[in-house]
């Protein structure tokens, strides 16, 4: 009896709250519904990883197969290859990207005036083009017959390469392209961080007769450390999410270089649109989503320990 009246009161109170907040809730409703359909419905589809999907039977009609998709996936060479490539490339992009951007930002900070703006704008240019166009640009360099790189090689008496048919070069080409495209953006993030440092530190240091390298090493870098660590960890949190465009358009989707270019995202895409094993794709997609959640939540946990303010949630 007592409990009943308590829940009754609770409902009554919540109902009053609900009526008070109803109008704002209505405003939020379109967005909520959109997210429900576009983001939350597909989460239900993750069960496909444990089913044998047939287009005519749909997601719910298809037969349950337990862990068969996973056993099949890990029996093939593909699984190891795409997971390894995804992790290693992302790790390379994150570390290289961080180091280059940090050095650039520190050096940029030593300069002043108009030149900084010009450098920034120039470095930002690749950010504005789509990865499809990046594919065109790399094609102009790598094309086997007339590509610029082979021209240069031949001029110096070297053998031309069939870049798209080889596996080794991509280990260097892809990180290079990734840096080229992203350096303007990431430099700016750190540069903005440096500009945010209180100028009093520098004035005090100057009075004490500190040199510019000293100020860079003793003030800028230590104060920038939390930002660097945070962005690095958050980057690692997303390590299971591959850069589809980079790995699809730059190696030009040529099967012969898949050993060093294929990542989870390109594999899944091919399985969906070309002839491919959709069940393995569903299984690896499931792994990507679940492990990705784990890595991001752990990354966030780490960030919270470095600096509570900067954590995502």
């Amino acid at each position, binding site marked *: 009896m007592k409990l009943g009246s308590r829940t009754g009161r609770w409902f009554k109170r919540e109902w009053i709250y609900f009526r008070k907040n109803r109008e704002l809730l209505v405003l939020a409703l379109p967005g909520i519904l959109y997210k429900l359909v576009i983001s939350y419905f597909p*989460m239900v589809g993750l069960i496909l990883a444990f089913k044998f999907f047939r287009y005519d039977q749909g997601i719910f009609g298809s037969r349950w197969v337990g862990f068969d998709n996973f056993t099949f996936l890990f029996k093939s060479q593909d699984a190891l290859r795409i997971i390894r490539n995804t992790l290693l490339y992302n790790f390379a992009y994150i570390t290289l990207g961080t180091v280059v951007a940090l050095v650039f930002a520190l050096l940029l900070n030593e300069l002043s005036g108009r030149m900084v703006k010009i450098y920034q704008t120039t470095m930002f240019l690749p950010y504005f083009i789509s990865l499809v166009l990046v594919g065109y*640009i790399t094609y102009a360099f790598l094309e086997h017959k007339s590509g610029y790189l082979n021209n240069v090689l031949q001029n110096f008496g070297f053998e031309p390469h069939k870049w798209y048919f080889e596996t080794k070069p991509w280990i260097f080409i892809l990180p290079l392209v990734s840096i080229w495209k992203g350096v303007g953006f990431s430099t700016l993030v750190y540069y903005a961080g440096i500009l945010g440092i209180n100028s009093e530190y520098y004035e005090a240091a100057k009075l004490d007769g500190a040199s510019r390298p000293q100020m860079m090493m003793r003030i800028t870098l230590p104060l920038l450390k939390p930002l660097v660590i945070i962005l690095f960890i958050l980057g690692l949190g997303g390590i299971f999410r591959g850069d589809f465009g980079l790995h699809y358009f730059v190696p030009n989707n040529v099967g012969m270089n898949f050993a060093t270019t294929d990542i989870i995202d390109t594999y899944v895409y091919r399985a969906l649109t070309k002839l491919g094993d959709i069940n393995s794709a569903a299984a690896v997609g499931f792994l990507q989503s679940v492990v990705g959640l784990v890595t991001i939540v752990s990354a966030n946990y780490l960030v919270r320990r470095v600096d509570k303010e900067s954590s995502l949630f």
Partner: protein
Amino acid sequence: MPLTKLDRSANYFINAFFIIVCALITLPFLLVIAVSITSEDSLVQYGYRFIPHSISFEAFRIIFIEPSIMLKGYGVTILITVIGTVIAMFLTALTAYPISRRDFRYQRPITFYVFFTMLFNGGLVPFYIMMTQYFHLKNTLAALIIPLLLSPYNILIMKGFLDKISMEIIESAKMDGATEKRIFLQMILPLSTPALATLGLFISFAYWNDWFTALLFIDNDKYVPLQLLLVRILSQIEFLANSPLAEAADKLQYANFPTLSVRMAMAILAGGPMLIIFPFFQKYFVRGITVGSLKG
């Protein structure tokens, strides 16, 4: 601040460093431009070079004589960019506003509900099957517009702005008997024009450069946006030779259809305008980055 001799030479050194970096970053663009204005004969004979052996505008001439392919691509891209941006801006503001209101009882759960999708998603396979098998959106304009309508990142930018609007003016509007809908439409939206401008820029940028949804959902010739057109030109060797452009080349009495230079010329005509326009708005991108980088 007077510069010491050492400082000045350090400055020279750093400037030289950045000039080299900037040159390296720009060179790839120049190569594409150079290829597009090189005659096909010299491309075949000497390969792609930064300094054309013989300059020729045949590629551009062919495209301008038969601009239908290009214009169609532009048409679809402009259409989805305009429609998508308008709807997306409104929807983003509409979603960001309630969760920026601290007195809104469901603020926290809805915020979590929206941003959780940044951490976890169903992945491509279920999304693709849902869009094509359940909603039958393959080869429709809607398939190009819907997936980009509401990104948590954009909500974050909008929310960051709305957080700064003082509660007092909202309270006083409520005192005067205004409904939440009216407050949003007649007060919040007009107040947020600067934020909406930044948002519009980001969203239109995303639509303009989007190739992923087109790659997934378009496989006929009806709604091919620019980016997908470029994908097809690059990945299907015979695409250009089978296009109306080949006839145009015939009309101009070129012995061979200049596939190599036309390809790069298409890339320039498709990507060039944005490369000129977007840098003017760089400052807004920068602002978005500084908002997003820490709480992204």
